[in-house]
């Protein structure tokens, strides 16, 4: 995009915006973005709705908003926030990142699930007992997301961590060009 003289910016966030690099079109800007990405470590809990609400105000010019997230948040609030972007004529592409275990729930023995965002949040369960319920809940969540994105004409691209991002991205772009 920088080669096309488009401006590219970066926002990292958890419950709030942690780092904001405004959009620039200069080639050096790429290094700044890459350095920022490299320096980031995931921590703290996420609150997408509040962060997106904050970002809407900062993004004055129409642009392409690429969101890379697991989207683990309240879907209704998330969709309201994204709707604001859409209202500002931003195009949105969401790359939803999944751990394959989150999709398959392949556990058999007793397992203690510890939250990535809050280490104190742990649950010891028999996975066999809750697998079906979990998968149903997951499908329900993904369906809600898909319908919401579809309603607001947002592209939702699921990606798993066990596949190269380039492959997933290439597959998406090929699909997009085909439209």
């Amino acid at each position: 995009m920088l080669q096309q003289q488009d401006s590219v910016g970066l926002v990292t966030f958890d419950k709030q915006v942690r780092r904001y690099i405004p959009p620039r079109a200069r080639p050096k800007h790429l290094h700044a973005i890459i350095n920022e990405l490299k320096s980031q470590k995931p921590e703290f809990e996420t609150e997408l709705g509040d962060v997106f609400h904050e970002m809407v105000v900062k993004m004055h010019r129409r642009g392409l908003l690429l969101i890379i997230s697991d989207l683990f948040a309240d879907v209704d609030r998330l969709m309201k926030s994204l709707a604001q972007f859409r209202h500002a004529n931003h195009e949105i592409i969401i790359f939803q990142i999944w751990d394959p275990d989150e999709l398959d729930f392949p556990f058999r023995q007793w397992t203690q699930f510890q939250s990535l965002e809050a280490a104190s949040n742990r649950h010891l369960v028999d996975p066999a007992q809750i697998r079906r319920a979990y998968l149903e809940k997951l499908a329900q969540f993904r369906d809600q997301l898909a319908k919401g994105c579809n309603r607001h004409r947002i592209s939702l691209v699921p990606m798993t961590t066990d596949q190269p991002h380039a492959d997933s991205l290439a597959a998406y772009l090929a699909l997009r060009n085909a439209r």
Partner: protein
Amino acid sequence: MTFLNGALAFGAAASLIPLIIHILNRSRFKTVEWGAMHLLESVIKVNHKRFRLDQLILLLVRCAIPVLLALCLAKPVLTGSRLLEGDSPVSLVILLDTSYSMDAVDPSGTRFDSAVDAACAIIGAASRGSEVAVIQTGGRPTPLFDQPVFDPDAVIRKLKQSQAGYGASDMQASLDEAIATLSGMSHARRELIVISDFQPGDWDAIGSSAADSIRRQVDAMSIKPELTLLPIGQPVSGNVSVESLEFPRRALGVGQQLAVRANVRNHGTTPIDNVRVILRIDGVESSVSQIALTASGTTQTLFPCTFDKAGSHVIEAEVTVDDPLADDNRYAAAVTIWDSINVLLVDGDPSTQPLQSETDYLSIALTPFTFGRMRLADLVQTQTILAKDVNEELLKTARVVVLANVSKLEPAQLTALTAFVQDGGALLVCAGNKIDLDWYRENMFTSGTGLLPSIFGAPRGKIDETGKSAHIVAQHFEHPALEFFNEASNGDLSAAEIRQWHELTDIDPNAGSTVVVRLDNGDPLLVERRFGEGVVMQLATACDADWSDLPLRPFFVPLMQQLVTTMASGILPPRNITTGEPAVAVFANVPSPPDSGEKVAEGRMKGQDASLTLSVVTPDGSRRTVHTLPQGKTQVARFDGTQRPGVYAMSTGSAETLHFVAETSRDESDLSVLNEPGLVSLSQNMASTLIKSSAEYLAQDRLRRHGQEIWKYVLAALLAFMFLELVLQQRFARVRT
């Protein structure tokens, strides 16, 4: 409850394994960092309590599975509160109904075949070392072996060769015999099994009081046996039987006609037309009658028959009909035909004038053809002698002796006369004006131990006062000699005028004295008593026309004929007996060369001082040997094995064959059986167990011995729990989202 493989029951401890696995699983968990915690939490939050409950249920089910598996392998046995008897030997008595009703044909064969099969199955399953006794109840209780035996195979072999067809069962006597047998047996565990068709006729006799008595007898035994009732057979209808043969029981001579009445009973509810009834004499068809049988009724048919030869004969009526029981389609009776009956008339008031002697009328009455110079022969042959001529030699030739107005006898004569009666002779003592009342009282009555059944008391009536005479009471006569006069056309005994008689006193019914004929004023006229093997009759009036007009009456001839011939025939041991009663024949014990076998009067034989050997052919064709035993001056043959109805032919080989006919109650011909409530009531009264088959008995016996194995049920529960575990596992995974 106990276990056949007790050690394996400890495998139930394996129930801890699921618990341990559960605890280990919970303690040895892995930790996973999880991003989609909000999804997981929502599921856990909604189902938290349910997860715990489901886990508990699943854990219990999983713990139960190894417990059930261990129980199953340990083979649990229910025993109740009893100690198990295991394979301990048993003392077993089986009462097997062998009465002829057991020959009735059911759809599955005869009842007896079913009974034998059941008995063999039970005996065959007895533990090693058991002792077995089988008592056949038909006719009279008869053990299959003399002693209980320890070889069940031998019992089974003999049982399979046994037959039914015996007389009616005396169940009370059979049970008594069984209890007596059981009390002499050796094992601590004792069983009494009754296998019968349980006909009401056999078992109604055992009322509730008798059943209580049996129960008390059983309870009183030092080792109480288990009593079991096993009914065999279903009710069968449509049976036809010859119920009885009726004919006069007086002595019969060659050529004399005998009217035989056969009573044929239809036990079915459907009338049967054109039924043939055949009368056979000594196995040869004599006459045939065609009759129609009413439903559930008895039809009579009359056969006149004569015999052309003296001796022992058998008459038999047979009904030819296709019915479920053949044994009762015939009925037989033994008849003795006499060459002649020698009667010794001792005249106490002789006269040279016609009809003035004391015995003149009597002699004419007994031998009317001889006096009438007719070509027909008299059955009775008389010899008239004076009192002083009575001696032992003369008495030996006589069958019947008549003392007619005899004043008294010499002591030696009295001794000979007493011996004559004692050995089976018949004596008729007639009163008169010459008799010495004191002598008769002291020497012939002898305080009730003498020959006379009563004392000649004071004279009654007046021979000169006509119009004040007494008469015989008109009644139905029970005595066989007078049954003939129950038919009015044969004469009216009450028409005779008895002008004078002696009062007969001291008649003791307990000593066997009975009044046969009584006068209308209440005085006895004719009294009878058995004395030894013989019989004595005492007439209160004279046998001539001095004291009564009896000799002038037309019925005097048949009266005296009936009286004398009945006395002559009645002294023999009966030839028509009930099944189970002994067949007894008396032979004179006259010293003579061996094997002379000379026949003497009235069917007696000259034999030898030593025991005679006789052969007896039974109704089933088998031949048995009987030895006589001395009794006084006679040899007595006694054959006890008369349990089977039919003809028993007893012979020495060189002399005439004597026939005995054993018959039984024809109640057995009613092939109905006790219904369920009746059986239950009987069983309760006897404190017994009612079963329906030998298989049921064996199952109960196994239960008593080994308890009830329930491993199959435990295995079913195990499989059910395993299936339940699968189902629960699947079901518990479906939780609320």
